[in-house]
């Protein structure tokens, strides 16, 4: 696996609060990567560090082999970025923005974005501030694709879209990714439907990376087990337990691993991507709450 982006103990502090801490990960080239996690988990911070909008407080991030903040001239031409809420010049028309893109980028495929927007019937001569949220998202996506970058980074592209526009957007995004062969990194707090576009998963929670895995593998290796109440330690000795909960009647555990449960009193269920993500987020929340709980007992 060739890594197109790597982070090494990357951290970013805003005043006293850490937006991202101890982030170490390696993202494979040529994949469509979903960066998921709750709001405030550090997704935007990580992505803005990757395009050099932010400066790391500690550690380092390398994109296409260069540090984005220190060597912007080496990274910027190879990365296309659409920030959250698609900030564009609202008084510019799509036509203006295409001209801007052509002037401010060395590589620029004007026909690609023009054809795409015409196909989607997005008016090219109206200020983008007066377009619908879905149309604006399409303009921003089109512009990022026209840049012909090695990596296309989209920060919460679905957040501002209604369900119908979301469907449409994911459809065009999927086609575009297949065509261009670029690496796609897409952040979202909505996991639903991401499988349609993405084949790689990064879960980010409480400012830390929880999991980095191919989506196929994630679906193959994660199982939900239900069985009689039992000792969590015993379970952990055979399985890699992500999260477990217990009621007087039964125990539920999410485990990672290819091993089978031999005890017939246990049932094994396959999990959806959304359930897997949720399991990791629950674990991170528990870990976060534990020190506080201990303190309360004392």
């Amino acid at each position, binding site marked *: 696996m060739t890594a197109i982006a790597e982070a090494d103990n990357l951290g970013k502090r805003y005043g006293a609060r850490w937006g991202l801490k101890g982030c170490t990960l390696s993202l494979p080239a040529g994949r469509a990567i979903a960066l998921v996690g709750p709001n405030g988990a550090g997704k935007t911070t990580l992505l*803005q560090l990757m*395009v*050099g*909008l*932010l*400066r790391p407080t500690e550690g380092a991030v390398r994109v296409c082999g260069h540090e984005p*903040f220190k060597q*912007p*001239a080496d990274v*910027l*031409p190879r*990365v*296309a*970025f659409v*920030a959250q*809420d698609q*900030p*564009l*010049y*609202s008084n*510019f028309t799509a036509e*203006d923005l295409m*001209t*801007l*893109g052509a*002037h*401010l*980028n*060395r*590589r620029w495929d004007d026909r690609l974005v023009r054809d795409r927007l015409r196909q989607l019937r997005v008016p090219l001569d109206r200020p983008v501030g007066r377009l619908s949220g879905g149309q604006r998202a399409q303009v921003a996506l089109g512009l990022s694709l026209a*840049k012909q970058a090695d990596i296309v980074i989209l920060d919460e592209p679905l957040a501002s879209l209604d369900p119908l526009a979301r469907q449409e957007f994911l459809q065009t995004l999927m086609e575009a990714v297949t065509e261009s062969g670029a690496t796609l990194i897409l952040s979202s707090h909505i996991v639903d439907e991401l499988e349609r576009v993405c084949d790689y998963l990064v879960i980010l929670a409480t400012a830390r990376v929880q999991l980095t895995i191919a989506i196929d593998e994630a679906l193959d290796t994660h199982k939900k087990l239900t069985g009689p109440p039992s000792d969590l330690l015993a379970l952990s000795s055979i399985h890699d337990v992500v999260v477990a909960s217990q009621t007087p009647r039964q125990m539920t555990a999410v485990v990672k691993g290819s091993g089978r449960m031999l005890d017939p009193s246990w049932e094994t269920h396959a999990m959806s991507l959304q359930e897997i993500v949720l399991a990791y987020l629950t674990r991170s929340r528990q870990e976060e709450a534990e020190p506080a709980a201990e303190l309360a007992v004392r």
Partner: protein
Amino acid sequence: MSWLIWRQHRIELLFVLATVCLCSAFLAFEHISLVGTYSDLGLGKCTSAASPACSSNLQAFANQFGWLYVGIYWMLLLPAMFGIFIGAPLIAREVESGSYRFVWTQSVTRTRWFLSKVVALIVGAILMTAALSAVISWALWPLTRVEGILLLPTLNVLTTPLFDLTGAVALAATALALSLGILAGALTRQTVLAMVLTVIVFTAVRIPVASFLRPHFASPVVTTAAVSLNSDVPVVPNGAWLMKLGFIDGEGQTFDLIGVASARCQPYAADPTALQQCFREIGLRSFAEYQPADRYWLFQGYEAAIYAVLAATALLVAWSAVRWRLA
């Protein structure tokens, strides 16, 4: 970058062009009547106010057109306008609207973005100011010459507003206003606040420099003259910036009023010859302190240098805020 700069600032350019044209039209219109009256009164031949005919004609001309000094006074606002409406929003508006995340992630680095914008806007603003300043100098020359002969301070080449609106100072002040606006926007990241700060800081720099530093760029020339009954003012060259007139006695004490200075000669007031004799005995002379008009470029150099250094500093700080603090 040049296309983006044009696209984002063309309205501002149009507005500034319109303002400069309007001011120029007004000045050209006044110029016609200035030149007409000037030649009608035959003022070209008057080099001093000594002859009674020249004196009254010069005075009449100055009275008729002296108000123009107020007319150009408000043109001092032009550099401040550049700072408020072009400088302050340059970075603040990008941050407020979030569009900096769009424009700084194109292939052009933000350092190049900053440099291109700053250079283009400062050059543009300086050209506009230079145009207006050339029109002012050309349109008002008859009035400036007449006021120079009469030693009036209102349209003197070394005093506000004429000194500030012409030469290197006008250009440097424009660069300073823009730079302060850009800096305020980069630090506050709020357009309105940055606009207010721009006005405050720009005024706080210009007024003290013009009123407290400028008179001291070079020590004034002092001339004295014997006090006689028909003339008590020393000869001061045309166009000089007259800073102080007064009386000085043999012990070096200075007085504003002849009455106070010559109190000791009061007993001889009835006899002109004895009075003159008394003046001579106490060494009473009149004196004038002034900056000669030919120090114009020296003064322009000093003041423009102050503004240019401040502007360069402001831009450097603004750049480092854009590069390091907005990250």
